[in-house]
């Protein structure tokens, strides 16, 4: 067994522990319990923070996309949201198209195309 295998096995157990503990805790409480409301607020805030960070200061491969192109993707997503009446799939595709178009324009402007 390699170190990567061992790390994966232990992480799988840790994930099961996190999810299982949460299910047991949440299952014992009423839906309107303050602890449930707090957990929902924390989960939503975490998701919102994830979105902001992933668009504004992404890591990994997404960081190679220039920020004006990411901004163009968000703008196209907002436009698509209005045009397609809040339907997710065409809106997502509009956002992706906006990002690619923005990136192509930036690359053309830099003389890379």
């Amino acid at each position: 067994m390699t170190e990567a295998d061992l790390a994966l096995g232990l992480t799988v157990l840790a994930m099961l522990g996190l999810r299982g503990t949460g299910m047991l805790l949440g299952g014992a409480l009423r839906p309107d319990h303050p602890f449930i409301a707090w957990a929902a607020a924390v989960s939503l805030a975490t998701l919102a923070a994830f979105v902001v960070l992933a668009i504004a200061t992404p890591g990994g491969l997404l960081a190679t996309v220039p920020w004006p192109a990411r901004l163009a993707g968000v703008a196209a997503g907002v436009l698509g949201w209005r045009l397609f009446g809040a339907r997710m799939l065409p809106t997502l595709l509009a956002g992706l198209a906006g990002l690619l178009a923005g990136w192509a324009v930036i690359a053309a402007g830099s003389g890379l195309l």
Partner: protein
Amino acid sequence: MPRPTPFRIGAIEALGAPALAMGVTFLAFGAAVAEAGLPLGWALLCSAAVYGMAGQLVLLGLATGAGAGVLPAVAAATAANARFLPMSVAIAPLLGPRRPGWKRLLATPFIAITPWAPAMRRLPGLPEHERLPWFLGFALASWTAGLAATAAGHWLAPSLPVALRAALLFTNPLYFALLLAADLGRPGVRSAVICGALAAPLALWLGPAWGLLGAGLVGGTIAFLWQRR
């Protein structure tokens, strides 16, 4: 024509924008695992059982980095996915009748952002006995799409241009941004989203392992206290 079962309705709802958003992220992950020299089985087990991209990427980076060590990699990946604890707490009471409680535990392996976010909107409007089957249908369909995309990414890694993979990764945050935008009118959601977005810079200060959870804890707690004023 008979009405489709809640399980089937959930599965069909998952096989649109959610599967697309998730699929492209897992495709990129499968390709990254192949580039790191790890086998397909590692990639599939990681996607199937860790099933949270932040933790998956942290684990991949640290477990394959020179001299990183097993325990730091596990601790960092666990911290990066620690949001599963409050997410599970929040969704458990919505998954149908409290008795028998063991049935709800069937949902445990599938608590992840992609099924959780739509479920938090959808479950309260469903009859109690339809909630768990709907969630399992949605979760199994998106989980299967994620695994298929991981395998495809691992297999296609040499032929996928880096720029295309980078662009596809954008679909994931955009999808969650749209989900949050659609929910802003629901009670309690707006303040949590605004506080979470404002707390996001904290994550940069706290670092990649604890940053996201830290920002969520601070932003979510402020929103919770604000709502209870």
